[in-house]
């Protein structure tokens, strides 16, 4: 595969930044999965789309709004009625899903080059994200694996909780650099490390 260029590259500076003398509050990184795919089921075909995602990835999506599942290199979550984002560190997920999901069930859209995946991890992750998005990041309201779609100043973001204090954020590639810089500014007060 041709090496994909990250939109964050000109501003991606590994190391510690901000007020980190008292400890690092969050760790920011780009996860760079090779497959980011959107599956959209026609009304009434949601269960068959979920079954196809399970067949291809082994991920069992839970029922219900914004439900999701994480399993090491793979993740899947619902972000809208009948619509799911499926992520894999390996290439080829879109082709595999397109084979498993007939046109009568739904559509498969390859977004691997269209989205940038940013990970924020650490004890202050909820605090930093709460400055960006008007949603509840507390664990009972936003359980592990679950996802939310929202916006930060008109920049769409799909956020999945992939750990107790870890979130993966999918933003449009074209907005990723500006979002990344804003995230860095917001994390300065708690001290952050770019991995």
């Amino acid at each position, binding site marked *: 595969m041709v090496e994909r260029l990250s939109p964050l590259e000109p501003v991606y500076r590994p190391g510690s930044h901000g007020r980190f003398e008292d400890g690092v509050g969050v760790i920011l990184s780009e996860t760079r999965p090779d497959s980011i795919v959107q599956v959209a089921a026609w*009304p009434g075909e949601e269960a068959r789309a979920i079954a196809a995602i399970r067949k291809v990835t082994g991920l069992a999506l839970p029922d219900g*709004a*914004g439900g999701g599942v994480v399993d090491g290199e793979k993740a899947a979550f619902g*972000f*809208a*009625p009948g*619509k799911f984002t499926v992520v894999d560190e390996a290439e080829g997920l879109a082709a595999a899903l397109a084979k498993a999901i007939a046109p009568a069930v739904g559509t498969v859209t390859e977004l691997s080059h269209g989205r940038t995946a940013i990970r924020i991890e650490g004890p202050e992750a909820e605090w930093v994200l709460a400055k960006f998005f*008007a*949603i509840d990041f507390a664990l009972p309201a936003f359980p592990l694996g679950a996802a*939310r*779609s*929202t*916006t930060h100043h*008109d920049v*769409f973001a799909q956020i999945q909780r992939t750990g107790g204090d870890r979130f993966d954020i999918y933003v449009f590639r074209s907005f990723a650099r500006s979002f990344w810089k804003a995230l860095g500014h917001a994390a300065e007060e708690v001290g952050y490390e770019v991995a």
Partner: protein
Amino acid sequence: MLLTCPYCGPRDVSEFTYQGDGNRQRPAANSQDLQAWNEYVYDRQNPAGDHNEIWQHSGGCRSHIRVVRNTLSHVVSSAIPVRGDTHRRATERRKPGAKA
């Protein structure tokens, strides 16, 4: 003001786009009834109280929702997905030329 999206839960109103009066009945595409078209385009009830509205959660799941909002108090008494509703209404489509 908070709107409770049926999919996403309570969200700030800035995430939503107002899609217009929910009481409008669009005449059939081939309708020649100018009165019906005029009512569809211009006539609004403008109530002081509960009002049927269509909103889109454009800054979230992007689904359209049917909202009942009180124009005096901003109390939202109901917010349900438009989908499902549209299926029912498609089969009940009024005859061409029928009055709104």
